[in-house]
Structure formats: structure tokens, C-alpha cells
């Protein structure tokens, strides 16, 4: 339902043809040659199509051309980091200094990325994210919210959670939830196991995740609501998701690269950059996470970008804030999954772009006609080394410091215009 705006850019109907690129189409498997035709800010055709005579051609120079990344669940609007990472749309978590529980705050958040990228705010499910009273979800949707979220917390009160799901389903919004049973997770900062025992850290068993998922799946079944578990990180959690999908429930889940490539022993020596929420899991759960990506259980890979400066991280482990700066490393780390043969490049773009777009209900993340011409030009093999002291992000809190990676975004196009 797009209403033409009166002051539309007069150049909007410029025709562009991107040639000489390797197209990473989420609808396909591997890259293929072809052309992308753009009119204004929309894709009109892609693949084996003729270049119209009146189109301006753009030579991709043999780079991989893919939809811009759509990052479902970031904690900060971090322009330089998103630009480095090839992220063209970011779904902003409601956990801001003032929780996004009001239409005015949502409207403000949608403008924060302009003109370089889209911010799609996630509306707080409850007032102040306190988990008790419903927030004005409908008004926030009208102001631009694209989903509803419980934030960093699980809603402990099952009655409230059921009403959140039920109400959001009436508005056609997906509920993005945090899967950790609050009673078990408590003040834990690590997963129960050898590392937590050795370091003497407050810990919770990994089943805190599956327990939360089990309850919320039952509530999703009862309400018919769409629910997205933002980060699922354990074998038991994925088993729940698999069963719910097989049953046909509207259940999706995501993960971030940290849980795919690191296990809880990464916090040895009290490395606060590896203090995440949920906490890093066992090596067995890490392997189960890779398997869940490979077998299609995982729908979304998110950076969970949460830049934190020394005032939040240069503290004793349990006192440090959780979270990692992930926007810059999202694509390069995810490409490991392709190199290691777990997914095709097309499937990876589904996880990084097409599926998040579907969950948020935005017409992007695809090469289908009418989709937003948000594209990235990627050199998938370019080697570089993650360096926490030289990151574009607001802070360099990456647990992947000094790790060699491959793959870098060379150019970004938003709505048919190069940034």
C-alpha cells in the first residue's frame, strides 16, 4: 500500500542496468551471471534479461551483487559500522535509553538512519519493557514499527506474553522475543559448565533457553501469532523450533555468528568482549547451531550489534554489560558457512536478507520485481583481519579480535543510489 509522495525525486525513474556482476539471489542457490535492472528505487528485473537501450549501465567488475543485509535486532543505530558491514536495513531493538514504547520515539528512530540506511524500529511489547502492561503497539505500528519485541528480557508473566502475542497477531506484527527463562537465568552471566565453574561465575543451565521457547511456542499455538526467537543457541532450543515448524506454526528463529564460531571457553581469562546475552554455550551446542543453520531450522543471521565502550566492558566480568559489536563482521563470518559447505550463497542471502525482510514485512531483500534496489557489491574472498582498535563501530567490543576473515562489502546502493 504505497502512496506516491508529492515531492518525489524527479530522477526517481532513472533506469539502471548492473552488468558484469555475479548475482547472489536469495531465491537461487549459487551465484549466476546476469543483469539487474532498476527503475527509480526499485528492481524491475534480474537475471538473464536484455539491457534496455536507455538504461545507464553500471559495471560491477565481477563482484558478487547481493541484496543489502537486513539486520534483525541491533541495539544501536551505528552508521559507520552498518556501512562497513553492507547493512542497508536494521531492525532496532526497543532497548534504548528510553525504551521504544511510544509512537513518538518510534517515529524518531525511523529517521535515525536517513539518508544512508533504513531503520525499522521494533516496538516495545510492554510499557517500559517491564513485562506487565501492553504498550501502544498499534500506534507504534502506524508510526513505523515493523515488529514487536520483548527486548533483552523474557516476559516472565505468561498471561502478559499471551496477550502480547494475541494483540500483535491482530495487527499482523511478528513478536520478537528473547529466549531465556528469567527464573533460571536470574543473574547468571555464563552457561553452567566447566568454564563457569573454573572462573567462579554465576551461571544458568543451557535448558533455560529451551524452557522459554517451549512456553512461547505453546502460546504462539494458542494465539496463532507469529513469533521470532531472535537468538537461539542450544540443541534443545533448535529441537523445539524444528518441531514447531513441522507442525506449521508461525515460528522463526535467528542466531548471530558468535554462537556459530565461539563456545563458552571464549570467556576464559574473563574476556568481557565475549560476555553476551544469552551467554556463549558449550561446544556441543555450538555444533548443533551450525547444524541448525545447515538444515534450515535457522531463518535469520543477525549481528545483534551492541557497541559497548570501556565504561561498560573494562569491568569485572559479571559487572560488564553483555553484547558485542557485530555489524562489521556479520557478512565475513557468515561467509565462512558458505566456504565450509554448510549453506549455499543464495541460502546465506536468504538468512541475511530475504527472511528478515519477510519477518519485518518490508519489500526488500530480494531480486524480485518491485523489491527495493538496496544492493551490496561484495568481494567474497578479500582477506582482512578483525581489529578491535580500528573498528568503524561506535566501540570495538568484538570477541573476534585479531581473527583473519574473508569477504568485504565494496559498494552499497540504497534505493538505486550509491552511498
Amino acid at each position, binding site marked *: 500500500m504505497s502512496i506516491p509522495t508529492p515531492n518525489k525525486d524527479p530522477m526517481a525513474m532513472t533506469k539502471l542496468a548492473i552488468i558484469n556482476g555475479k548475482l547472489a539471489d536469495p531465491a537461487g542457490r549459487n551465484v549466476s551471471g546476469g543483469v539487474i535492472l532498476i527503475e527509480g528505487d526499485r528492481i524491475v528485473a534480474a537475471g538473464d534479461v536484455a539491457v534496455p537501450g536507455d538504461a545507464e549501465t553500471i559495471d560491477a567488475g565481477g563482484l558478487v551483487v547481493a541484496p543489502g543485509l537486513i539486520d534483525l535486532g541491533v541495539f544501536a543505530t551505528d552508521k559507520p559500522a552498518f556501512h562497513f558491514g553492507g547493512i542497508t536495513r536494521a531492525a532496532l531493538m526497543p532497548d534504548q535509553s528510553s525504551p521504544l514504547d511510544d509512537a513518538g520515539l518510534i517515529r524518531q528512530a525511523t529517521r535515525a538512519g536517513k539518508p544512508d540506511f533504513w531503520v525499522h524500529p521494533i516496538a516495545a511489547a510492554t510499557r517500559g519493557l517491564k513485562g506487565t502492561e501492553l504498550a501502544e503497539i498499534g500506534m507504534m505500528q502506524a508510526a513505523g514499527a515493523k515488529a514487536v519485541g520483548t527486548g533483552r528480557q523474557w516476559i516472565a508473566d505468561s498471561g502478559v506474553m499471551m496477550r502480547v502475542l494475541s494483540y500483535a497477531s491482530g495487527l499482523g506484527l511478528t513478536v520478537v522475543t528473547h529466549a531465556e527463562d528469567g527464573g533460571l537465568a536470574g543473574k547468571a552471566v555464563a552457561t553452567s559448565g566447566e568454564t563457569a*565453574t573454573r572462573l567462579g561465575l554465576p551461571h544458568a543451565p543451557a535448558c533455560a533457553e529451551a524452557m522459554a521457547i517451549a512456553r512461547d511456542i505453546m502460546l504462539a499455538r494458542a494465539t496463532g501469532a507469529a513469533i521470532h526467537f531472535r537468538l537461539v543457541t542450544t540443541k534443545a532450543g533448535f529441537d523445539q523450533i524444528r518441531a514447531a515448524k513441522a507442525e506449521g506454526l508461525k515460528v522463526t528463529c535467528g542466531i548471530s555468528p558468535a554462537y556459530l564460531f565461539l563456545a563458552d571457553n571464549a570467556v576464559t581469562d574473563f574476556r568481557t568482549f565475549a560476555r553476551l546475552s544469552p551467554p556463549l554455550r558449550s561446544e556441543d551446542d555450538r555444533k548443533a547451531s551450525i547444524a541448525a543453520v545447515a538444515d534450515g531450522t535457522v531463518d535469520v543471521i543477525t549481528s545483534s550489534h551492541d557497541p559497548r565502550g570501556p565504561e561498560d566492558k573494562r569491568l569485572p566480568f559479571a559487572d560488564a554489560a553483555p553484547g558485542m559489536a557485530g555489524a562489521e563482521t556479520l557478512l565475513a563470518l557468515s561467509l565462512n558457512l558458505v566456504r565450509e559447505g554448510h549453506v549455499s550463497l543464495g541460502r546465506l542471502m536468504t538468512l541475511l536478507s530475504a527472511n528478515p525482510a519477510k519477518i519485518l514485512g518490508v519489500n526488500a531483500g530480494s531480486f524480485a520485481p518491485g523489491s527495493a534496489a538496496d544492493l551490496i557489491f561484495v568481494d567474497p574472498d578479500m582477506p582482512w583481519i578483525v581489529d578491535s582498535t580500528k573498528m568503524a563501530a561506535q566501540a570495538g567490543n568484538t570477541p573476534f579480535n585479531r581473527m583473519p576473515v574473508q569477504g568485504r562489502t565494496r559498494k552499497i546502493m540504497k534505493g538505486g543510489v550509491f552511498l
Partner: protein
Amino acid sequence: MPDIIVPSASPDLSGRALFPHRHLLSIADLKPWEIRFLLDEAEHWAKSNRGGARKHDDRLAGMTQINAFFENSTRTLLSFEIAGKRLGADVVNMAAATSSVKKGETLIDTAMTLNAMAADVIVIRHASSGAVALIADKVDCPVLNAGDGWHQHPTQALLDALTIRRRKGGFEGLIVAICGDVLHSRVARSNMLCLAALGAQVRAVAPPTLMPPEVEMLGATPFYRMDEGLEGADVVMMLRLQNERMDGAFIPSPREYHMLYGLTLERLAIAKPDALVMHPGPMNRGVEISSVVADHPERSAITEQVEMGVAIRMACLDVLTRGAREVEGWS
């Protein structure tokens, strides 16, 4: 008391190579011969501390020792203070209650402040696991961990090992039962690693709610029933149960805990007839330990532990400052 046979620490090493550590942060960092070396050094101080009214040895004269205690302590602070003073150091105590920590200064800023005052050795206690290592990273002098969260309390484990060695002669084959709130105990973590490294058979005895997962990885066998854990034990080490954990959070009540896990004379009889009773203090008499056991003249080593604490801390302060004092072979 049996004769003490002090094993040669490590025949091939001497000086700095024998103890190549800048700080004392965790027992996990120490090799068995490094632990034995510290015990041997402390043995010397244990003798001199008993040597009459004049106990001074001024090898640390002119050096400044700061005891930075971010968490309340009486005996450990006092023990470190006496140890430093007996070695002739200028000892300064910084208690959290009166410090700028209460005014919101960050831990790193406090560390930088202590460092700028040119301390020669800093002793730190903090309520958060890993906090002492964080400070050690930022200062130029040796740091001794006097307890960080649930993580480590290395001098306590060393003084316990010294006490056991003096009473039992050695560690090989010795059964040591560490009983009580193992989950929240830095004393237990340090002791399990230390005693296992020295060759003892270590048991962790606790109700399931107070047992850390995978405690075997620290070298201990878990026991959930006190009587089974005490069977045949040579040493029974009791742990303090924190008040805030007694009332329904981890155990139902102090009296039920005493009934199931308290060390009474009857229960002590399950252990070996000459089993040694230890407690790091302060004790909850009538909760984890009955008074008659705590005060038992032959069996209880609790006051000796306190005595050995000073000796161990003198040894650690001496050894860690040898580099700065340019002791031959240590610079």
C-alpha cells in the same frame, strides 16, 4: 607433630626460573613444584614467627604494600598487614567503605591511582570474579589475590596446604573432604586445584544446590551426602555458609543444614580417627560446625590455619618482590 620431610622443590630450577610469576592470582597458574616451593619458603617463616617476641625481618624495608580490600574482611586483611609489617614493609590499608569506590570511581581508575602512588606490592580483595586479574593487568607491581568473587583465594589454599603438610607430613593418598557451600566458595576452588595438584584425593561434599557443575574438572569427586563424603577422610575442611544463602534460597534453613551437613562429633567419627578438622573462618558455630568440634584440642587445626596464614603471606610477599629487590637470581 610428625617430623616434616620437606621435599626438594624442583632440583633443576633455581631463582626466578623456580617461580616465574609476576602476580599470584590463581592456583590454576601454579605448577606443583611452584606450590611446594612457596610452602617450603613459608615453613621458614612459620618457625621464625614462633621464635619469641622479636619477629622482624626487614627485607621489605622501604617498600610500600597496599592492601586494597573492596570487600569486607577481618582476618585476611589483618594477616596480610601483619605479614607485611613483619617483613618491614610500609603497609597501607584501603577499605572500600571509606574509599572513592563508594563515590563511583571505576575499578580501573582506582587501580591506576594505587599504581601512581608507586606501590611495590598490592594485595586485593574484590567481590567480583576476575576483578583482581583486571587490576593486575594495569599496574606495574606484583598483585596478590586476596579473594575475588567465587573464583580464587590462593593464599588460603596455600596456608591450608601448609597446615595439612605440617600435621600429616605430605599429601600423597590423603583423602580431603571439602564440605559445604562449594558453589559460591573461592576457598573451595583454590583448595581443590591446590590439593589435587599436590597428590591428595579431593572430595567436594555439598547439597546438590550448592555443588558447582563439572566440579570434577577442578580435581574433586562430588559427594551429595555428608556421611559418604566423610568416610575414611584424613582431613575434613568445612566451608562457611553465607547468611544470605541460608533462608530458602539454596537450602531451607540453617537448622536443616546443620542436621544434614553440619560437622558434629558423631559425624566426625565417620572420618579417620585422627582426621584433621579445618575451617577458613569466620565460623557459623552450630550451623556448618558444632562448637565442640571447632574447639577440639587435638582434631581442630583452625587456629593453626590462622597462624600459617601469616607465614604463607610472608612467603608470597617475599618471593613476589624479589625481582624488584634485585635478589640474586631473581632480577
